[in-house]
């Protein structure tokens, strides 16, 4: 289904959703930083900046409670968090580099263990993607085979038009339902010209070749050249739309507390630190190697997909200028 919605009706749509109790998550400013967060009103939305963190947190929050416990005398009571209570959500203004990562993550969260925290949020969320009209020299979605107008992962996809408004195209029942529930706000598509798309880093990587090299070079001096400078923080993983490692911690007192699921990152020294004191990834280049291997080899081996959408966030935030696009490009030319 293809429709048109004016800019004014689009804000009405969001305000109506908010008024009827739907959680609307969209890019907004939080103390000066653009983030995907629940809106109190459509006026908060900022569509012209790529949020600093990806949209994955709509399904996979930075920190979430998964269980609570209470102890009284010898009696311990445990209460599970019920995913059925997660709210219906519309995730709006999602850039293709974020939306495309979501079906990629479905694979790992529904593999041998079904992660209901992720999957129930997924079922209850309608994704409204947005064609990308701005880019910088860290963007490289086109290099990993995607594009600024890629509709993968979106239920409804918006293409901004000259003079305001959007073309809306549906890609699922959820997307159609969003239009059908608010038909008065949508019109038939007109002849308005779409805004020119972003033009990111264009040279396409030969990801097959990259994988062949990775298959054969677990041990290689290049890893030192690439990552000797890595300082071992988690910034790259935490802003990434596809990184999905988490840690589980119990926090509280002897009397009561919570079990929590928090983002984790393979760049941390502690990530593979064994209780024995041994650490198989004892140097930073070995940890950074895992980041590249997981994205361009292991995830492909297991699920036939690439764990990178070229959003460029890790390049922008890396304290020491590690540039994954350059690294992968160089590997593809080896």
């Amino acid at each position, binding site marked *: 289904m293809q429709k048109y919605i004016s800019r004014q009706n689009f804000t009405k749509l969001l305000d109506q959703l908010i008024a009827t109790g739907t959680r609307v998550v969209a890019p907004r400013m939080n103390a000066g930083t653009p983030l995907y967060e629940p809106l109190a009103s459509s006026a908060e939305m900022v569509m012209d900046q790529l949020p600093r963190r990806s949209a994955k947190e709509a399904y996979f929050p930075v920190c979430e409670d998964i269980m609570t416990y209470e102890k009284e005398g010898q009696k311990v009571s445990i209460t599970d968090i019920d995913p059925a209570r997660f709210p219906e959500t519309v995730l709006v203004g999602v850039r293709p580099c974020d939306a495309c990562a979501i079906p990629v993550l479905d694979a790992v969260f529904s593999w041998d263990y079904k992660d209901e925290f992720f999957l129930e949020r997924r079922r209850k969320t309608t994704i409204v993607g947005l064609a990308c009209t701005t880019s910088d020299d860290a963007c490289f979605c086109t290099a990993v085979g995607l594009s600024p107008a890629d509709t993968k992962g979106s239920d409804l996809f918006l293409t901004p038009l000259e003079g305001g408004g959007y073309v809306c195209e549906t890609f699922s029942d959820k997307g159609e339902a969003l239009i059908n529930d608010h038909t008065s706000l949508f019109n038939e598509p007109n002849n308005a010209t779409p805004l020119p798309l972003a033009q990111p880093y264009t040279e396409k990587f030969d990801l097959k070749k990259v994988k062949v090299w990775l298959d054969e070079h677990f041990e290689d001096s290049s890893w030192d050249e690439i990552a000797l400078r890595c*300082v071992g923080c988690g*910034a790259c993983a935490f802003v990434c739309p596809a990184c999905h490692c988490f840690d589980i911690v119990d926090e509280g007192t002897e009397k009561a507390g919570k079990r929590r699921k928090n983002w984790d990152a393979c760049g941390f020294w502690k990530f593979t630190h064994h209780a024995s004191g041994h650490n198989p990834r004892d140097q930073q280049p070995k940890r950074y190697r895992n980041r590249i291997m997981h994205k361009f080899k292991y995830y492909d081996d297991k699920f036939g997909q690439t764990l990178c959408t070229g959003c460029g966030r890790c390049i922008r935030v890396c304290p020491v200028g590690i540039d994954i696009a350059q690294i992968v490009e160089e590997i593809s030319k080896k």
Partner: protein
Amino acid sequence: MTSTLIETSIYAAISESIQAEAKRILSDGQVSTIVGYAAARRKGSAQPIVITDASDAQKLIFTPACVNNLAVYLTKAKKDIPKKGKIGIVVKGCDMKALTGLMGESQLKREELYLIGVPCAGVLASTFAPSQELTDESLAPKCTECDAHLPTGCDFVPTETPLTPELEKKYAVEIARLEALTPAERWAYWKEQFAKCIKCYACRQVCPFCFCEQCLCDRNKPQMVETTPRPAGNTAWHIVRAMHLAGRCAGCAECERVCPMDIPLNLLNRKMAKELKELYDHEAGFEVTEKGPLTMFNEKDDQSFIK
């Protein structure tokens, strides 16, 4: 308002001098390794580089994008840099203060270092793209308060002299603004900032003074600070860190530069530095001293708080 251009034309000549000196000291075996800056892929960008071969000396540069404090690579928390023999390092004045502090804390020995100082007019703020030209607006906030454009105590410093216009001191202005708030307003400000923290620990990992081999905040037996990225643990983490750095941090502002959530962390450190100056007339980074005012007792210390 139009912005004022910061003169950086001397950086080209400085780069050439650094290259020549690096080539010389690697060739004659004075140093085994040099930590410096090299150009990176993105337009105008730079990144840290470790070289051991004189033929790589030509890769070294100095530009407004050479933002890192490379002193972090010499600390024991970063074990991966080869530390055989003397190490050369490219330092700006602000980086030199960190090295001075590390020498005072017995982390480094002066005789094991070959210091290549950089006459510096300033570097770019993290909020600007690396290709941005340097102006009073795009200048890193720390550079507006710099008192070390020419590093002292180095083995080699190119002869160029940077032109450094007098600028509004950005941290001083912001600290004055925060000091004028009520405690409740100030608390609201920091609560909002700390709420954004995702515990990526970039602030810790780039800090030359966060050299603990195991950070207290990574321990879970007992757990000192909640590790979860939630307001309580985030606040505890940043306050613990600010206190641990008080009297030691010389203001390289790396923590603030790298924070992916834009938390103005150097404000905490500058505020602590201001208190230390007022209470103990202490400024970090100027001389090699073993103990700072917070780690020793002096009879002249302010004792008015004892009632």
